[in-house]
């Protein structure tokens, strides 16, 4: 992922879960639970913009374990 602003995310050991958290007409939302290097778990809310769903042809692959 490429951030539009400078941010500091904690170092992630691995992603515990990545679950669908609902969709609207123009966005999908997900919950990411990550185990941090510090040993604690952190939950993130991810919203992905979609103005329309075509479903065909355009598949985005997001490797959530190596986004740094």
């Amino acid at each position, binding site marked *: *992922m*490429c*951030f*539009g*602003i400078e*941010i500091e*995310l904690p170092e992630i050991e691995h*992603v515990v879960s*990545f679950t669908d958290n609902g969709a609207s*007409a*123009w966005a*999908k939302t997900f*919950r*990411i*639970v990550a185990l941090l290097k510090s040993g604690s778990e952190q*939950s*993130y*809310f*991810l*919203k*992905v*913009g*979609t*103005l*329309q*769903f*075509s*479903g065909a042809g*355009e*598949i*985005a*692959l*997001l*490797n*959530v*374990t190596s*986004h740094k």
Partner: protein
Amino acid sequence: MPVILDQVSTGHHGRESLKGEYESTLAIYHIVPDFVPKPIGWGTYSLSPDTHFYIGEFRNLLVDELPSATEFCEKLAMLHIKSAASRQSGGKFGFHVTTYNGNLPQENTWQDSWEKFFISGLKHMFILNEEAGGKCEELENLLPGLFEKVIPRLLRPLETNGNTVAPALVHGNLWCGNAAVRLEDDAPIVFDPSSFWAHNECKRILS
């Protein structure tokens, strides 16, 4: 763990709307931190330059439960009062980025009076309306009267004869679908803002 999203290109508007959501949430977070889930950032997928995202802290919310009216209104009033007192917008009405109500971009250009901002935002909405639905002569005939008589007569007294409107940060798209309570303590939470500095009683210009 590769995750496949059946995601299509969102283009410029998708990027700007998620940036607007981040900036709006951050602005509220700076005034009343526990009224929104903490925002973290926004950006674009490295492997899919047309796919954009917003990321924040995940909060467990009871989305079907409306917040208590008393607590909710106290928090909302705190947002308006503290932001107005902060004078962060330098007395101006607007916002520093474009925000979206759904897929509709809002006109947030800074204005030095509430009347000017309201007229500019409403004119913008009529342009969007014409782009979406075509010209409507009956409506067009009403607009000069609306902009030159009705709005000035209603809004100008708020800012003349010693009266002033202190710009307050408003949520910008406040309705029951954008409010919930936190699972752990029933505290009211708002989300999906499209904030701007406004008259504190303004919900949004129009969409």
